[in-house]
């Protein structure tokens, strides 16, 4: 409860973690607010079906609040004049202000009277897109901070956010956001490409960092490293060097 998980990927695509968390929390019966900025609803739906969860049904029964970034930005830019008092969550495209997005998150996760879901969850895919769309890095960090206060502290829910990063990246704004988030996360799942290059059987390695030092001063962070291979419906994890191809 009240945990902030950061999904980070470097030189590879960590979106399989997003799909995992989405289906995990839906199956656990939590109310999920999914801010999907990068892909369309049908993409997530199809993958989720392979993982055994029906997103459309979850949306119908109110368990899933889905913000489809791509569709909303089209409505904002090409649609008719919006009604006053109901700003689009993607307003920052024109005003660089993420407040409307935060309000959307807060309203969707605040439990209504009839709700019987277990804790709220905010899932964001992915935060680096906000920077591409003109939001300042400080604004993005403020947004995350507000979300944490509201979702993790007040509503006792969890937040899972995906960011991209690169070791010798020239994108300083992105690196700033990622580093800052790393310091404040309770759990970091870092998917990286293998240092030795592309391999058909091992798609990458994942570093799991449990940030115990955040809660208690004297504790050290626990770091575990596994390698993984992504299949059509599943991802298999194994200890380094012990992929099925080698054994």
């Amino acid at each position: 409860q009240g945990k902030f998980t950061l999904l980070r990927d470097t030189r590879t695509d960590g979106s399989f973690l997003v799909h995992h968390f989405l289906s995990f929390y839906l199956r656990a019966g939590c109310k999920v607010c999914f801010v999907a900025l990068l892909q369309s609803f049908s993409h997530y739906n199809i993958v989720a079906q392979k993982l055994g969860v029906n997103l459309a049904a979850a949306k119908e029964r109110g368990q899933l609040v889905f913000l489809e970034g791509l569709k909303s930005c089209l409505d904002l830019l090409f649609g008719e004049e919006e009604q006053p008092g109901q700003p689009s969550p993607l307003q920052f495209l024109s005003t660089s202000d993420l407040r409307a997005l935060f309000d959307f998150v807060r309203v969707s996760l605040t439990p209504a009277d009839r709700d019987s879901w277990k804790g709220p969850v905010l899932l964001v895919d992915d935060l680096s897109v906000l920077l591409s769309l003109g939001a300042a890095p400080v604004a993005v960090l403020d947004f995350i901070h507000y979300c944490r206060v509201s979702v993790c502290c007040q509503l006792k829910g969890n937040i899972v956010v995906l960011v991209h990063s690169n070791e010798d990246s020239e994108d300083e704004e992105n690196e700033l956001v990622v580093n800052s988030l790393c310091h404040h996360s309770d759990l970091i799942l870092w998917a990286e490409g293998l240092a030795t290059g592309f391999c058909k059987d091992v798609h990458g390695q994942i570093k799991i960092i449990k940030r115990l030092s955040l809660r208690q001063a004297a504790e050290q962070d626990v770091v575990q490293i596994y390698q993984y291979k992504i299949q059509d419906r599943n991802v298999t994890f194994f200890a380094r060097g012990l992929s099925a191809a080698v054994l």
Partner: protein
Amino acid sequence: LVFTEEDKYDLYSNLLFKYFLAEGIVCGHELFVASAKEHPDNILKELPAPLLDDTCGKELGDEAAAAKSEDFQDSMKIAWRYQNLPKMETSPTTYTKFGHYYNVSKKMSPELCQSVKCHSFYLHDELSFEAKMKTWNMNSGYAKLLRSIQRIISQEGFDGSDPQRKQRNVLRIGIQSLGSVLWGDDICCSDTPEDAHSLTKFLYVLRGLLRKSLSACIITVPAHLIQNKAIMERVTNLSDMVVGLESFIGSERETNPLYKDYHGLVHVHQIPRLNSLICDVSDTKDLAFRLKRKLFTIERLHLPPDLSDTVSRASKQDLAGSAKLLSSGCGAMAIGKKHLDF
């Protein structure tokens, strides 16, 4: 959304662009061509002629079956097809027909060009902008282009908005030299551009439009001119497929005996991962292209055997260096950081 990084003199990427459009015509799709550099009508006049199946068959010893490309009526996805070559074989003989082949030395006949509806957008012909669009906070050239694309999509019904339409077709969008100075964007000129977010916002909205309709898009960008690498990284994240073309003209590789058969390299930086957890990664990442008199082919790069008498240290290091560049291929899978010496 296929994002192509242009080669330095824009010879080969232009060719790839024309192939995309020509394939659209042959398959009967509608076209939308946008450019700030040359008038789209001129581009359309110079599309390569398709190779007729029987002549191609005789030349390559293939079966003469005329294979029509896939039916994309039910796809909402972006599909890119390499007309000339899949990545597996080095030559197109043994692979089953997928797409069409084109003869670069002949132009497509005007009747064939007229057979499909072509929409064009030439930046310098467009009227100035309405006031409402000021809220977009984007370069006006890009905003006009987006408006134009959106209008075509909704008017012609590519977004499924008109249930009466029986026959659904695909729209192929080609945008040439995006990000160059001609579009009014200064990311190619300076390190700290005035509006660094125009291009990325444009791509995001374009992505939204493509996802909502039956269309596919290819964009060519003079990536070598963009000073601010952060923009390139963001743009890569926003595209489905990123391909870079590196031609050997004017570089030291032109005289390098390793590359004597080829005109350039193809770098696949990212392949689409849509609707599934995994993506389809081929075995090899080393692709090179060459422009023969009639055909433009993309093949697996094989290094010629090292038969020279004087095997100098320098050429070995060169080989190692270029091998490292080649194998840092696909962004969706791992990229090697260090080169391991075996």
